């Protein structure tokens, strides 16, 4: 019975991954390497590196990635060090606020940044009003070609990822290791370099590689800033003439290749002297309370980072609540018109409905697959389950834009997956694409939850007369529920905010999800940008409510559930 279920799961998940993950990728690769008369060729690949436009795009993408990562480090390292070691006023709530940028879509934030820091934005208007700046020579804060804007937005969106990973690693450092170094005569500053940093390396590395790859392949932010010469945007623009042109395929392969190279290359480089990660702190660290001006300094630093991180969102909020906000510090006229209109506009209304539909179905798919795979991995010893483990983790290593492109290529008529495109409706395509992107997270979340449940809890139920199915239903299921809910929530939130797949796969206005509708509105004339902001604001609000609400429900339960 158990064995049969295991084999069934193993086969169907493998089939799913082969069809919807490996096939789209291989399709892209085939197009990139296949010559006009059949046979293999590397010409297209070389063409990418000969073409100055593509080269500039790659260079810009790299620049954005490097500086975004450095910016994240600049914010996250001091934050994490202070958080792990010290106690200060408002620590808990500030820590929560630091994570807020994670749940807000970066390319909506980009609209806000433009409103605040653009040439005719709030900051310049403020400086002009105080006479620091001349009306005729405003400063371009976002830099030539807007690259600075893209980097700034990436940093403000991605630093929580580095912060979370680093502080997790730091919290695992046994205080006794520090004390030991101290006793041996190592002063604090050298201790940081010789003990703390090497031990925190795994977390730092994990956070940085996620941030780097994200920034390297990010599509939404450069699109809003109108940065054309960046690889992701070049791929996006190339999908219009996909039929006979192999160059977009080659470009995708190059992007993917570089991503993997950077990912594994840096890992090989960093792992050489990474010794941490094995240990777990045996003692809780005694937090040092910061009092007086030191305490206020720490609080102030956290407040400052939160304030800066919220600039884009404040910008979005102001845009959504104003009429013709231009060349003034704060809007002249306040109105809720765009907010109302965003809920009445035909484009936004269908987009909200579409997104809810796509995201809901994708989440359901993720949960079914995630729960099945987690059960297979934790509760069976079936041969081949490590294969499933590896397969379901692979989407982590592939940039969203690469996957989206693969789906698009394979769903054109005559291609193996064209049946996914039901007529013109990308519903199935988007559901599969969204689900695939978040599957690794759901699998991880549920697996972790299931591992916490000792098999004896199920056996106890069986010895009391519950059949294996009943034991699963009455004991395992309620206990693993928080992890399932957390994984599902994450999958849902990210599906609502997915950019790459949405931009590339939804072609007709009728099928636009929220993100693509925002993009379309942002580029429209008239009240487009403020409508886009209003829609973005609604999306942010909706997600915040979802997160806070579930957090409240779970929070109460989680606390009680895991205090065994």
């Amino acid at each position, binding site marked *: 019975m158990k064995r049969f279920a295991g084999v069934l799961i193993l086969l169907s998940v493998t089939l799913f991954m082969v069809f919807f993950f490996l096939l789209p990728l291989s399709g892209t690769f085939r197009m990139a390497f296949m010559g006009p008369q059949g046979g293999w060729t590397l010409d297209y690949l070389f063409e990418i590196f000969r073409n100055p436009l593509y080269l500039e795009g790659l260079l810009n993408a790299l620049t954005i990635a490097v500086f975004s990562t450095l910016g994240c480090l600049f914010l996250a390292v001091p934050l994490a060090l202070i958080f792990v070691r010290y106690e200060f006023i408002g620590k808990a709530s500030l820590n929560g606020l630091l994570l807020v940028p994670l749940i807000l879509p970066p390319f909506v934030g980009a609209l806000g940044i433009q409103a605040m820091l653009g040439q005719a934005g709030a900051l310049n208007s403020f400086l002009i009003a105080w006479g620091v700046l001349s009306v005729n020579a405003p400063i371009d804060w976002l830099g030539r070609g807007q690259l600075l804007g893209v980097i700034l937005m990436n940093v403000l969106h991605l630093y929580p990822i580095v912060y979370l990973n680093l502080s997790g690693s730091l919290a695992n450092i046994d205080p006794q290791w520090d004390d030991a170094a101290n006793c041996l005569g190592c002063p604090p500053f050298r201790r940081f370099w010789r003990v703390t940093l090497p031990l925190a390396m795994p977390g730092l590395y994990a956070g940085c590689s996620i941030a780097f790859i994200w920034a390297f392949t990010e599509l939404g932010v450069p699109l809003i800033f109108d940065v054309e010469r960046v690889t992701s945007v070049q791929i996006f623009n190339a999908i219009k003439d996909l039929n006979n042109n192999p160059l977009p395929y080659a470009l995708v392969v190059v992007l993917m290749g570089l991503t993997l190279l950077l990912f594994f290359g840096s890992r090989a480089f960093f792992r050489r002297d990474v010794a941490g990660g094995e240990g777990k702190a045996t003692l809780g660290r005694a937090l040092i309370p910061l009092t007086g001006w030191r305490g206020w300094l720490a609080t102030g630093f956290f407040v400052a980072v939160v304030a800066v991180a919220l600039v884009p969102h404040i910008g979005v909020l102001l845009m959504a609540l104003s009429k013709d906000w231009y060349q003034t510090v704060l809007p002249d006229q306040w109105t809720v018109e765009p907010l109302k209109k965003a809920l009445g506009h035909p484009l936004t209304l269908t987009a909200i409905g579409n997104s809810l539909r796509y995201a809901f179905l994708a989440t359901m798919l993720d949960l079914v697959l995630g729960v099945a795979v987690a059960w297979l991995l934790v509760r069976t010893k079936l041969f081949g389950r490590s294969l499933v483990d590896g397969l379901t983790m692979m989407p982590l290593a592939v940039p969203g834009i690469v996957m989206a492109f693969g789906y698009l290529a394979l769903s054109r008529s005559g291609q193996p997956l064209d049946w996914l495109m039901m007529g013109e409706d990308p519903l199935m395509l988007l559901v599969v694409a969204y689900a695939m992107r978040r599957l690794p997270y759901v699998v991880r979340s549920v697996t972790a939850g299931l591992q916490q449940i000792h098999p004896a*809890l199920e056996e106890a139920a069986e010895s009391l*007369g519950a059949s294996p199915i009943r034991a699963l239903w009455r004991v395992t299921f309620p206990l693993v529920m928080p992890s399932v809910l957390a994984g599902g929530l994450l999958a849902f939130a990210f599906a609502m905010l997915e950019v790459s797949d949405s931009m590339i796969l939804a072609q007709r206005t009728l099928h636009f999800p929220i993100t693509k509708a925002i993009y379309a509105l942002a580029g429209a004339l008239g009240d487009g940008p403020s409508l886009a902001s209003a829609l973005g604001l609604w999306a942010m609000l909706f997600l915040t409510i979802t997160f806070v609400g579930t957090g409240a429900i779970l929070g109460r339960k989680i606390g009680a559930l895991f205090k065994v």
Partner: protein
Amino acid sequence: MRAIDLQHLSKRLGQRLVLDDVSLSIAPGELFFLIGPSGCGKTTLLRHIAGFLVPDRGRIFFDQEEVTTWPPHRRETGMMFQNYALWPHLNVDANVAFGLQERHVPSAETRLRVEEALHQVQLGGLGQRRISELSGGQQQRVALARALVIRPRSLLLDEPLSNLDARLRLEMRLEIRRITKAFGLTAVYVTHDREEALSMADRMAVMKDGRLLQVGSPKDLYQHPNSLEVAAFIGEANCLSGQVLGATEDPMIYAVETPYGRLLARKPQEHWQPLPRTEVHLMLRPEAIRPGTPSPESNGFYGTLVETLYLGASVQYRVRLKDGVLIQWLVQHPRGDLRTEGESLWLDVDSTDLLMLED
């Protein structure tokens, strides 16, 4: 009450033979202990009785009915797990009521029986508590109540006291014995704590490497172990070696030639007839040794005291014999001065306390 009968059970897990032809009969109402070092197969045997494992070979009977391949939920056995396995998402009442709900007992009766069960383990009034709000000892009692409330026909206990502190452990020993007797339960109890087994068991089995070494009452096993392994596992044991000379007038008492002279020793089983010159072990409990003076009739040997360990209620001496062998000597309730290290003295042993065991 139910008789449990195991016939020729063998089980291989991976490369290891974890049960090797185990046969055992447990009488109705008996409190039976499985004891042995970790990895000896005692928990594996218990899990076969519970139904979590099915033997590769052999059969399991409950009261003449074969249950070898029955799933656990049909076996009507209560089980107590090592870490209690209480469900953290249910409160005390719901944990205890679980088995009754699976049996579709009406809710009014369920309430009554849960209350009664909690009362029996002295947890009345704590039904609404969360599991995390209970102490280790209380969790222990909830686990017991949960196993008993379904009125099982047998109770299986897998090292149930190993996570409790020493004082609580003593208290729970009495409690568990009292309850199993009051319910008339056939109980199988796994432990590696010999004191627990000796103090509670009606009968017990010592296991090693998947085999049963010896089965018997605690007194039997302590006083008449049939191998050095059993002797050493059940209590402290000194081991001397020698060669059989022959039987005396008493057919159970043999003369044995040792490096310390001729000693009289008892053989554990009647049917064993060792021939002269057979190499044997002589097992001697530390507390069976007495100081004395040598005479032609005395059964004993000289030794030199090399180490003293004062324990309050007793003193443990370590004595070196002529050939360098070290033995333990335990003096209960020591009075007067302790003996000095380096002292040479004569030690007397009763011939019935010196047990002759096969090499």
